[in-house]
């Protein structure tokens, strides 16, 4: 009986959606009955209205934030993987860089944001560099862990076949590292949006983070919520895109050992 239920179960996550709807409803009822002021907590309805009214501005700012975050994500992926590859292939580089990389991983990197403004000024360059900075570490650390996770027996087999260490890297280490790289990429995807938004808080004249600061200055709390909602959708979209690429890669090369 239960197996048939499972077989025909729709792919949409009904239960979480239901919980979400219930929370919205409770939120609406609380705001209505306790007559909470708009500035403190706007009702879902007024957030929706704000979303609708500010749609053109939201879209424009969303494009700025989305572009910066996606660009920063791609640069961080590339830089992180190159960094990991360099540390894998050069023991010296590894000894020089890896402890520092771990140290940076532990730092509250967001706190370094103002430094980027000092160095690169207000605007896109500093916020872009900042977003890359906060998202490059999970990629580098993940990719390096993956490259190191290669099976010693497979590496030995490759060497016995006459493979150079570069060939071992390309044919054994790199494919082994893929699941680790994707795990790092998922963290980097969220970090890129965090970095871009925080960057916009402190150093921008466009983007959803900037919009949030503007709305806050005008005490336009519904608009803050509206901008946050758009930000959530953007973040989820990039995360989902990484997931789709991972699924495709798994279908193509996938093993599920």
């Amino acid at each position, binding site marked *: 009986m239960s197996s048939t239920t499972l077989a025909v179960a729709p792919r949409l996550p009904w239960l979480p959606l239901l919980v979400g709807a219930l929370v919205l409803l409770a939120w609406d009822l609380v705001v209505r009955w306790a007559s909470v002021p708009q500035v403190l907590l706007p009702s879902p309805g007024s957030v929706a209205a704000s979303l609708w009214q500010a749609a053109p501005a939201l879209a424009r700012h969303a494009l700025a934030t989305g572009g910066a975050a996606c660009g920063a994500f791609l640069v961080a992926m590339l830089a992180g993987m190159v960094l990991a590859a360099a540390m894998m292939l050069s023991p010296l580089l590894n000894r020089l860089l890896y402890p520092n990389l771990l140290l940076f991983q532990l730092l509250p990197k967001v706190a370094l944001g103002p430094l980027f403004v000092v160095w690169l000024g207000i605007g896109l360059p500093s916020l872009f560099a900042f977003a890359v900075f906060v998202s490059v570490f999970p990629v580098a650390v993940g990719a390096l862990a993956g490259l190191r996770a290669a*099976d010693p*027996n*497979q590496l*030995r*087999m*490759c*060497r*016995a*076949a*006459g*493979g150079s260490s570069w*060939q071992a890297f390309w*044919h*054994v280490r790199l*494919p082994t590292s893929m699941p680790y790289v994707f795990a790092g990429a998922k963290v980097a995807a969220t970090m890129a949006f965090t970095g871009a938004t925080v960057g916009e808080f402190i150093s921008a004249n466009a983007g959803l983070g900037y919009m949030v600061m503007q709305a806050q200055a005008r005490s336009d709390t519904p608009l803050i919520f509206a901008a946050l909602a758009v930000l959530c959708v953007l973040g989820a979209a990039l995360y989902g895109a990484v997931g789709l690429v991972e699924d495709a890669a798994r279908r193509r*090369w*996938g*093993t*599920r*050992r």
Partner: protein
Amino acid sequence: MPEAPTLIAEAIRFDAVGKTFPTRPVPLRAVESVSFAVRRGEFVAILGPSGCGKSTLLMMAAGLETATEGRLERGGVELVGPHRQTGVMFQDATLLPWLSVLDNVIFPATIRRIPRAKVLEVALRLIETVGLKGFENSRPHELSGGMRQRAAICRALVLDPDLILMDEPFSALDAITRDEMGDVLLDLWQHTQKSAIFVTHSIREAVLLADRVLVMSRRPATVAEELVVPFPRPRTPALADSAEFAAVVAHLRGVIARNMAA
């Protein structure tokens, strides 16, 4: 006067070869003054207990470990690293899980930058010979342990090497599959003139497959005794059921027991 490699009758020669690992606090002496040669077309089994250093011996033959004493010659030339004409089989199949069976079999050609088209026919024929036809596009995780080792045999043979090195290739398999793999190997060797070194701790496997058995001592490994297997080729798996076969196995068991007691 140096001889031309083609005139050399030996596929590989160990000359007073020793190997000491620089472990601490006491260096580990794994192999001591091993001397023997494998003739062209000869199948030599190296028999010894687990951990006696016989795998180290094979890894030196594969060019994956260097000898700390003595000298190895491959076809009359000093061996300094992995040799193009040597195929290696390990204890595990060590197939790459992201490649198909066919791509795994072709892997040595990929590494040697030999065009796929050049080895495809050989690879497909090998796959058919070992009974993996129809699984060319399967992934390793879809195969049983025995099927994976069959694919590993094909990979070791795909570049048509003149020497095959096998390091307890069936030790991870169950007893029934293990016997089956011995039969596959026996069958393959009816048609080839390849030399082979086969490391094992199974007396039965050694006697069934080899022309000559070298019994190793405990660590540090050295050749304790040598036995020429008195059965002509072609052999069949039925040989293992004969009384003569049992007598040879019993004799070797006695040799090993004496060695362990010494």
